[in-house]
């Protein structure tokens, strides 16, 4: 019985993984749905006013993101992420896990929270 369970579960797993890929190939329109935010210029001062867990903006690579709704989803504990609310977190974003940047998955996820561009007088 355990043998059957193992082989069935493994087969279902690979079918499920393949399904995610097949859907993406079959419906090219689904490939990129990231929201395109208005190109609003946000000053460092305005960024700094959103430094709370309940209202958390961060600047990463020149863009500003409202990450308030995403914070509970972040895998790291709050004390790792929350100190970057209201600040330019590019360095932290690029040096996660022994100096390695976040993954392309994270980049794409981040795009959904973009609310504007950071003013040039910062960094």
């Amino acid at each position, binding site marked *: 019985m355990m043998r059957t369970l193992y082989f069935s579960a493994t087969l279902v797993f690979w079918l499920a993984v393949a399904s995610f*890929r097949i859907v*993406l190939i079959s419906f090219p329109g689904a490939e*990129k749905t990231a929201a395109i935010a208005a190109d609003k210029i946000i000053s460092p001062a305005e960024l700094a006013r959103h430094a709370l867990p309940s209202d958390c903006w961060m600047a990463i690579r020149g863009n500003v993101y409202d990450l308030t709704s995403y914070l509970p*989803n972040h*895998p790291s504990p709050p004390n790792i992420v929350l100190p970057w609310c209201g600040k330019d977190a590019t360095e932290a974003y690029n040096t996660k*896990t022994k100096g*390695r940047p976040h*993954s392309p998955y994270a980049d794409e*996820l981040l795009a959904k929270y973009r609310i504007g561009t950071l003013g040039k007088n910062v960094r």
Partner: protein
Amino acid sequence: MHLLRLLSIPALTAVFVAVPVLWALPEGLTFWRTLAIVLGWGGCGLLLASLLLILRETALAHSLGGLERMYRWHHFVGVGAYLLLLAHPLALAADAWQESPHLAWQLLSPVSQGWPVWLGWISLLFLMSGLAVTFSAKVPYRTWRWLHGVLSIGVLFGMLHLVLLGISEAVIAAVLLAVLLLAWRVIRVDLGTAARPFVVQSVDRIADAVVEIALRPLSAPVASAAGQFVLVAFFDGAAFRGCREYHPFTVSSIQPDGQISIGVKSLGDCTQMIQSVEVGVAARVQGPFGVFLAERPPGPELWVAGGIGITPFIALLRESSPRWPTTLLYLYRRETDAAFLNELRTLAAAAPLLSLKAIATGGDVPDLPSMLPDSTTLAGWHCYLCGPPALITGVRQVLVERGVKTDHIHFERFDFR
């Protein structure tokens, strides 16, 4: 079996799952992300529980209901962990699907990720291939044993996956526990430091392809009882080359000075080599293990032995005659195959409450319904079965049909794969 021992493994498993899941249980996340986290940590807890169940410590095995039971649960718990860990990335992808199908694929595809996720994939692939070998009946035991160890590499990669995700410093506790349990298993069991030194005292051929080997302790003896088994590895002698692997053998006699005897039937390469073992060969003994004949309630008993399965019963009879009416049904192919047969006949003649039914079955499937006592006779009896799995299954079926309660039927399967 005592209720506490019966519940010990399920309770331990529940604790191993509940602690990490409750610690990591998030609030306010989507259904799929919450499920993914619960699956990941639940799988991690089950992996740790499965590692605890491969330790071969006499006291631990006794409190958990025997080594055979621990290994059976090790299989259930290990497969359970695999199922949860397979579902973990799928649930994460399902969560990302809410955002976009592209994001879901980005999350699943190893190509677009970094080391934390690559290690998760590597771990899963090691578990997948290790289990494929585990369920392969064709791989010889010696090869199988090594390939089964691949699963432990999968566990270590899974722990590294947790560390690199940077979830919390508390993750280190889970990693340390996994490393500790694996190291314990390797050092105490695989490297044999838990075993005690013995030397072969005598070797008697007691049937075709069966020898009885007496082992004298060179340090502290093992405190075994009738019905228990020990794991023994034989080393080299003057002309004998031992296979140095630990195999389970039931104890056939226990002397007051700590000397034990085991019955060894030629069933594979290693046990074939042991048939020619010499006096003076060094051996190492782990154990004792098993609760087959432990805590027997008073009352009449039926003992059913198939082939070398007679060994626990001869150990019991050598200690003392039965104090309750006892029927021993001993099945073997031919008289020349029947270990201990002459001694059993002598012991039965001197034991007024013992009825011995020794039957040569030839090459035929035994007609069990005609050999076993009827339902009236069996009422209230406890039945102890030891022999090949097919015989145990067949006897158990007839006994249940004749109204014997399942908790009155006792047996252990010596399948360590």
